[in-house]
């Protein structure tokens, strides 16, 4: 009996295992069978947005690295020493194709978003006939938008780039060449067309792109195509019409007060058409979900990385007023100075009944001697320096969203496009410019006739456009706009001539059109020698 039992058990043991499926079963899903429902498509599209903000140490959009290729504008400069070489290259015009932050944070990040967006688009195609087509199109339209947005960024930064619109594997990944700027714009326009056709006007949360975001970007694409390098001026009229559509037909409005655009409690406010949406640590947990732009733009005195701060000449040219006061950190409160110094202010701390002395120091007394951008600090800052304890803990992150497109920009895009398309600026264009100027000074937007107003008819087209572009410079400083405006309008040389001789980082090369586009990362050319390099690098 016992033997029979043993044999029985053993035979079962030995034979039951003899069938097997030859498949790896990853905990994640195989890509071939991933898309099976609307939910899977939605998650894939969410994942595409996620690439924009993940990997903060390496590259993501909310860190200072993403701003490296725009350092050639006149608004920001950086530290002389420390680990800021990559920023300095662009600030001082000695860009190198070995710039790792350029490679990781602009080139690699944007192409990664493109790959994910293409995957969403392929997945959406595989859902055809399985899920409601309207729902598919409406959702995947966000991926079309993000892909267009990334190519727009790439073509403005690098000029000719490879166009890849599918997720390729095996050796095909090396079979790639750069495509002409015109072809890249064709791709951008095609993707934006799809996005505009299928995106809803209003989304459930402000973090999703909607039809108006796509249209506002379409306007900017046309405005850019009208300028350098394509110089296809017929696009001004298209830019004018589309931006007018956004101003007239969308529900977006200018905020009354400039500072209120950048308050955490006003996230998703009525002026913001699309922002990179971030989340505070206490709500979303660790893992770097917040904005590192705050850390990147803070001075060392406040435990910042000071990747970038304001150029002296730009600060001097910046019109005084509420907007400048909010945007710029130009002094710091210093506690417990020398009580014997008559300039210190004495205050008695009521709670502990002790004397506190404090004073203000001007930015010229900061370690770097420069003012700082503080619009991203989102109220989460304290400009008080406690001299005895320089290591006061300051949260490196702020939950502040990063505005990508807001109505004020559309106003100014319209004004420029109208003036160029029609040959002279209209009274309406002057009024749009003046509304932004009034708010910048601290006046109500509609208080016509203030001293900051530029009277209609007082400027010719070129001067008007120059005024509009400079106004964008003040209004949108730190919003990733100025450099592209300068390139498009071919003013990089002009504004850099204004650079203060007091700047510790002088420009190292004569600025030419070569510097309008960044070098293709050397690592990419090393891997795929079929990629050509931009001239001069």
């Amino acid at each position: 009996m016992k033997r029979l039992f043993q044999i029985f058990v053993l035979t079962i043991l030995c034979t039951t295992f003899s069938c097997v499926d030859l498949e790896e079963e990853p905990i994640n899903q195989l890509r071939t069978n991933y898309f099976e429902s609307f939910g899977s498509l939605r998650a894939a599209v969410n994942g595409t947005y996620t690439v924009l903000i993940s990997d903060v140490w390496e590259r993501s959009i909310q860190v200072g690295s993403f701003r490296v290729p725009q350092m050639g504008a006149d608004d920001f400069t950086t530290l002389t020493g420390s680990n800021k070489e990559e920023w300095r290259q662009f600030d001082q015009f000695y860009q190198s194709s070995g710039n790792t932050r350029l490679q990781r944070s602009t080139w690699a990040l944007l192409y990664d978003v493109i790959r994910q967006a293409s995957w969403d688009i392929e997945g959406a195609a595989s859902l055809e006939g399985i899920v409601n087509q309207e729902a598919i199109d409406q959702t995947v339209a966000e991926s079309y938008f993000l892909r267009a947005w990334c190519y727009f960024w790439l073509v403005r930064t690098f000029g000719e780039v490879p166009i890849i619109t599918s997720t390729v594997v095996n050796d095909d990944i090396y079979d790639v060449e750069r495509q002409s700027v015109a072809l890249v714009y064709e791709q951008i326009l095609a993707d934006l067309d799809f996005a505009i056709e299928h995106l809803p006007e209003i989304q459930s949360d402000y973090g999703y792109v909607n039809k108006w975001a796509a249209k506002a970007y379409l306007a900017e694409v046309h405005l850019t195509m009208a300028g350098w390098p394509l110089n296809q001026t017929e696009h001004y009229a298209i830019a004018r019409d589309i931006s007018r559509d956004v101003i007239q037909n969308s529900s977006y409005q200018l905020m009354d007060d400039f500072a209120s655009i950048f308050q955490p409690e006003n996230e998703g406010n009525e002026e913001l058409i699309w922002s990179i949406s971030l989340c505070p640590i206490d709500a979303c947990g660790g893992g770097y979900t917040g904005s590192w732009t705050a850390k990147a733009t803070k001075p060392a005195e406040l435990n910042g990385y000071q990747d970038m701060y304001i150029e002296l000449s730009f600060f001097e040219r910046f019109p005084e007023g509420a907007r400048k006061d909010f945007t710029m950190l130009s002094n710091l409160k210093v506690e417990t100075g020398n009580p014997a110094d008559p300039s210190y202010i004495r205050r008695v701390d009521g709670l502990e009944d002790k004397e506190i002395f404090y004073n203000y120091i001007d930015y010229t007394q900061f370690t770097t001697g420069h003012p700082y951008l503080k619009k991203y600090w989102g109220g989460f800052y304290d400009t008080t320096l406690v001299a005895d304890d320089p290591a006061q803990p300051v949260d490196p992150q702020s939950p502040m969203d990063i505005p990508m497109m807001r109505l004020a920009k559309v106003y100014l895009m319209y004004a420029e496009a109208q003036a160029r398309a029609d040959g002279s600026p209209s009274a309406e264009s002057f009024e749009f410019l003046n509304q932004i100027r009034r708010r910048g000074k601290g006046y109500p937007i509609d208080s016509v006739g203030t001293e900051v107003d530029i009277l209609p008819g007082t400027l010719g087209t070129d001067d008007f456009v120059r005024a509009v572009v400079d106004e964008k410079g003040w209004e949108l400083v730190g919003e990733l706009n100025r450099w592209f405006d300068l390139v498009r309008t071919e003013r990089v040389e002009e504004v850099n001539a204004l650079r203060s001789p007091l700047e510790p980082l002088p420009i190292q090369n004569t600025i030419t059109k070569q510097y309008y586009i960044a070098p293709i990362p050397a690592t990419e050319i090393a891997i795929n020698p079929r990629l050509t390099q931009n001239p001069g690098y």
Partner: protein
Amino acid sequence: MIQFLSSTLSRSLMVSVTLLYSTFLIGQDLTVSGIVTDQNNEPLPGVTILVPRTTNGTITDFDGNYKLKISEGDKLEYRFIGFLTQTVEVNGRTKIDVSLEEDVVQMDEVVVIGYGTVDKKDLTGSVSILSEDDLALQPVVRLEAALQSKLPGVVVNQNSGNPGSEVKVRIRGANSFGAGNGPLYVVDGYVGADIQSLNPDDVASISVLKDASASAIYGAQGANGVIIITTKNNKKDKTQISVKYQKSFSELRTRWDLMEGWQYMQTVNDRLRAGGTSEDNLLFSRLDILQAQSEGTTTDWQDAIFQTGQQDQIQVSVNKGSSVLSLAAQQNTGIITGTKYNRYNLRYNYSADIFEPVKLFLSISNAFEDRENSNNGEHINAIRAAVGWPTNLPIFDEVTGDYTRNAAYGPLPGNPVFMLKENPNRSFRNDLITNTFLEFKLAKGLKFKTQGIINLRGISSTSFDRVSPNIIASNPNASSYGNNNRMFFNWQATQQLSYKKTIGKHAFDATGIYEVRSSVERGFNSSGSELTTTALGYYSAGVADIRLNGASRENLEIWSYFGRVNYTFNGKYLFTFNARHDESSRLGTGYEGANFYGGAFAYRLSEEAFFPKGGAIDELKLRLSIGQLGSQAVDFLETIEVVNYNKGYSFDGSTFTRGAAVSRPKNERLGWETTNQVDAGIDLSLFDNRVNFTFDAFYKKTTNLIFNQLVPAYVGGGSLKVNSGEMLNKGIELAVSGYAIDKKDFSIEVNANVSVVRNELLDILGDADFIVSGPNQRDNPDLLDNTHRNFIGRPMGLLWGLVYDGVYSTDQEDLARQYNRSPGDPIYRDLNEDGRIDNTDMTVIGNPNPDFVWGLVTNFRYKKFTLNLVWNGVHGVDVLNSLKASTYGGAGNRDATNLDVLDRWTPDNQSSNIPGYTTTSVLYRQSSQWIEDGSYVKLRNATLKYDVPVKKLSWLKGVSDLSLFLTAQNALVFTKYTGYDPESLSNTGDKAGGFDEGGYPIPRTLLTGINITF
């Protein structure tokens, strides 16, 4: 829990064993009869049966039958030439059938090969074997260590002196650049078994399959050679209890001679002085130094981290009926503070012909391991710190009462004692294997075997990092913990049909097998920081404000069918042919399958009629084999793109919505690395088989090497694996064994072998000429390069660096100035003559691959004494002694601790080869200054055993064997290497060897033990 179970189980088994033993009976006279057979159940005529210590006895008849009158309580002893003598307790039985086992030291020895056995004389491939007798005299914690020195072509390297840590085994060199090069282990038919916790005392025999025809039967897994291990089974019907106890003490074998506190202080001052610091601003005042000298203020950091290691081991095995039960427990403490390794083994093997045509084998084994502080990286860091730290600093800071911090070590919590004591880690591992087979005799010569193996393995690792003292001051919550739990469920099912037939002079033996293997690993891990208290140590998950959890699952499925045909003509011409088809889930769709073949021919020249009989040569066999093998070098999810769920995106600014993203591109066409090997060999036996020679030459080429090819960032970046490149290993092996003297009271047995392997990288990825490997030399940010390079046409893993040409003398001031150096600075050769020294001046400065290795095992037996000596030698290896470089100071604000530096270059000591202190000095770690000859000869094991003549000692009634032994391990090491040990280097990869940043040294061990058999 597991430990509790394991110990409860061992205890209850011990109780059962005691009960079994107490059932022996005592009775009166009776007649015993029975039949004596061999292993194949063939009757043995002429077997002598004796009652020991009497003259009572008989001999079996032609059919193996016998009959004998004896007294109750007697034992019977069965003796037959060529077979092992067997002793049987009668226990009142009147019928005793005995099956005698062939004596393995005889020429007709049976060799275990893949999926079967073969008579040694019929062997066609290159197979090296070890029996339990070869293992018995060398006590080791891990079985692999016992392979060292004993087998030609098998190179064993003890990477670390930490008890229970990994031992590197390479058979005929390393084939692969990017994947593992360790052999495939097969334990009682379990393919791919993990032998780290196998009890060496349970092993009966080891066969090492080296050539392609022998290992081709393992197809896609056999490229690195195969080690087949058979565990002990009972000698039929023998009842026996053996107990072994041993205890050992281990100590550090060599030490670095370092400066005393005052010498260190003075040297620091000298350096500062040479750098231009004024007398008033030196770090130490004259008074400080004098005080340190008079008070002898010195911390011996080596004393602080090294200790005497200990081992206690007890092993009990019980043979009864058809079963063997083996229990073992061992507790080890290493020679570095805090390192511990405990292991508890249980094995139950049952093997019997349960009824006529059916044979059953059942094996249950469980091993539980408990390791403390096994993190090798931590030991390396601690050793580096122990030889590099200022000797004038105390372990604890007098002011804070906490560990001393040393600014020169930067952000590292570098105090060596802190590192070892405050960052504990511990891991438990339990490995439970049940292995069963049934063998049916279906017809004459036709057998069917079905085998099932289930392996459950659980690993639980915990770690706790107490934050360094200086950070505790500002952030008491920055300590962190980590927990990692993994469960493995592996199984294997093998169905095997074999047929044996002899027709006249033709003998056939055919085997066909179908096998399926599956492995699933599930993991869960948690780590965190911001602890509200550090009191909970490893188990801080509940008090951590920041927690990260992860889960994982991996699987592997392989199915295969394969076969082997042996054909022998006239006992002289032997042919073997293997073919195997493997499919693996690791490979891309459409590329899963691969075929492997092997063939061999052997010619027993000595069987020919023309061969002189009765001469010195008893046996002469020529062998030739060829075959193709694969290597399982493809990792999980290497060939398919997968979708990863990520944290997602916050569309409302306050919550996250989950997202999914596709992984980076993969190579769907990735395949296995393929190794082709040709082997030619000669086996020669002389002087009545007293001396045996085996010679082999092999040529082994691996193609489709797997390399990481960089992927452009425009498709996701990273790298993907591609098949590209070729590697060659060729070499010769010679083994000689035999009895130099073989007398009754005195014998000398010698077993010697020597192996030579030459490795060459024939081709690598794409158009590249070389690939870098090894670590970046982190002490030289201004001269950053990897320590190793791999060139086409040269061996893997060559050491890379600057050429050191001594020190600039005062006469060479002008030359020195060209390089911004001064007299007293090191001279590095400007190879490209561009007037500057940088990494373009680097070249190959050493080859860590040995010219040849040898092993020598001698057994001297004089009466009851046996002396076993195991020697081995490794010759022609270069080692970059980076640990030594760090004792010379010069980088990262660190100062010299090495006594040699006291004899450095000075204007008055121009002949010194040690750079002096100047304002311009830069000391590079990656230069030939640190290259040393790492060749060594070791007396690995010396065991003196004394067999107590129990038969003469009446008070030892019931004891059949009693022996005492004394062992010294690593007692003698002959080397020019100045570091701790040229064998246990910190970096041991095949393409980054010969690089010593401070590996855990192999200790010198003295061990004593007793062995009793009842």
